[in-house]
């Protein structure tokens, strides 16, 4: 496959704020950027910024840079440092919206479109660019997976019906889920409507209504949030895509009632495996008949520990640091997602490694436990997930105090304050209780929740 700019559908357009950028204009910009940043040819380039800048950068850098490193917009300096530890980045391109003080190395702030003569640019050969995508990290540290444009574009539907869609971008395009929406629009020739990621959701919905958005992709938590916005019902949505969390059947029902003509798809995808599969029948989980069958470009299986196995029939991704293989010798990737077979349906139950999904964000309980245990009056902490009908799960911390005498309410308040001060909101336990001792199972293992 050649560069992204050469495989994009020419009907694609990018709508941002009050302006629309046509494919013709994007193509000219792309050529000019390649002249302006000619020193980036064949280099490892990190990109960060608002969706419009980000997408334009992807267009000019694919087929031009040796490697494209996607950095989520709100990444903290700790994340950035861990990216730099893993990947030998030559250059960083950001826009003015990024707090580039988080980068300990010089960055290039890309301003308005250059007006340079790009007429000779096409003479250079196209580079086979490697893409590096961050996985949804659980510890705030980066873990990057190598991809190619081919592996990323594999499941993008390019039918005529998709070409008439107008996608609203709700995710960060630097993440796998957001990038899939961008590629879907780019390759099918649909419109892509982007708003600034930090605008409040009701304002973004308002903008999407004015722009006539017809297709949206979001996590179940985000869909529930959207359903609380009065304006949302005014969207003429004909494509609803859910992913990133366990999808519950009742949410699908609510969406189907509000948008009876919409096509509802829930996607199982992992950044590691590249892609996954889509379910279109409006029910949660997926049909039991799919086990040991080939669905699209993957084969599905169940491991001895009841986790979902995926065999990618097309290509094999690797992690950036190369030390851990993603696929075993037979090509199977253990997703770590626990399954339960209920009659003719396979239902997702959670994660084997115990990570808890809070509104689409993965939390490793151990990280929060270690954080709480830094407090001198806490001897042990156990963090588990408590089911929640809005966010999937919320965190619950059970703490055992040291022998030192202490007021219980005060101890709970101190744990809360300690967590709120240094953890992101979704990692702060909502429920904190003091217990006498740590629950241990009959086999001597710690029991979480």
């Amino acid at each position, binding site marked *: 496959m050649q560069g992204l700019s050469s495989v994009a559908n020419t009907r694609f357009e990018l709508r941002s704020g009050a302006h629309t950028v046509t494919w013709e204009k994007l193509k000219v910009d792309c050529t000019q950027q390649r002249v302006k940043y000619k020193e980036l040819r064949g280099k490892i380039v990190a990109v960060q910024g608002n969706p419009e800048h980000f997408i334009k950068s992807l267009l000019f850098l694919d087929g031009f840079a040796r490697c494209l490193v996607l950095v989520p917009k709100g990444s903290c300096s700790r994340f950035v440092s861990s990216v730099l530890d893993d990947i030998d980045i030559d250059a960083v391109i950001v826009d003015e919206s990024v707090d580039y003080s988080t980068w300990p190395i010089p960055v290039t702030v890309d301003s308005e479109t250059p007006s340079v003569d790009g007429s000779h640019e096409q003479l250079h050969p196209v580079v086979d660019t490697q893409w590096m995508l961050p996985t949804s990290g659980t510890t705030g540290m980066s873990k990057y997976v190598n991809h190619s444009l081919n592996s990323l574009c594999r499941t993008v539907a390019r039918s005529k019906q998709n070409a008439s869609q107008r996608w609203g971008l709700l995710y960060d395009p630097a993440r796998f889920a957001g990038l899939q929406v961008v590629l879907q629009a780019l390759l099918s020739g649909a419109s892509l409507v982007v708003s600034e990621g930090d605008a*409040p959701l009701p304002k973004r919905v308002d903008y999407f209504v004015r722009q006539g958005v017809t297709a949206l992709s979001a996590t179940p938590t*985000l869909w*529930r*949030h959207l359903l*609380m916005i009065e304006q949302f019902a005014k969207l003429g949505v004909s494509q609803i895509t859910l992913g990133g969390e366990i999808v519950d059947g009742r949410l699908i029902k609510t969406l189907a009632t509000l948008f009876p003509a919409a096509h509802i798809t829930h996607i199982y995808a992992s950044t590691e495996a590249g892609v996954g599969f889509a379910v279109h029948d409006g029910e949660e989980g997926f049909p039991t008949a799919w086990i040991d069958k080939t669905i699209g470009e993957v084969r599905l299986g169940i491991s001895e520990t009841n986790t979902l196995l995926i065999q990618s029939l097309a290509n094999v991704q690797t992690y950036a640091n190369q030390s851990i293989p993603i696929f075993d010798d037979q090509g199977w990737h253990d997703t770590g997602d626990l399954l339960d077979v209920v009659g003719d349906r396979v239902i997702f139950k959670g994660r084997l490694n115990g990570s808890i999904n809070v509104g689409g964000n993965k939390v490793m309980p151990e990280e929060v436990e270690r954080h709480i245990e830094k407090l001198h009056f806490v001897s042990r902490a156990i963090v588990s997930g408590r089911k*929640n009908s809005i966010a999937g799960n*919320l965190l619950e911390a059970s703490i055992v105090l040291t022998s030192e005498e202490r007021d219980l309410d005060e101890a709970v308040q101190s744990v809360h304050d300690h967590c709120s001060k240094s953890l992101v*909101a979704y990692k702060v336990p909502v429920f904190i209780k003091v217990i006498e001792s740590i629950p241990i199972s009959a086999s001597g293992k710690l029991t979480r929740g």
Partner: protein
Amino acid sequence: MGLTESIQRALLLVAKRQSVSLPHVIERELVLLESGLDSLGFAILVAELESELGYDPFSLMETPFYPSTYGELCDMYETYSSYRIVK
């Protein structure tokens, strides 16, 4: 404590937790997502109310409805109030 009073108290509690300032008297017309609470805040509110009242209307509804105003939220809890466990 009356139902509306419990809901108001829980809402103020969650707002305080999220460092959001709400008016002392909450009007029915208050748009929940414009109150400053984010989706995590709303999830916490529903959990707090479940602890306090003993039920969660979102898990009782066959096809969940998601309220946009404080008034709609109160009506929803009122509709399912037969599940309330009075402590």
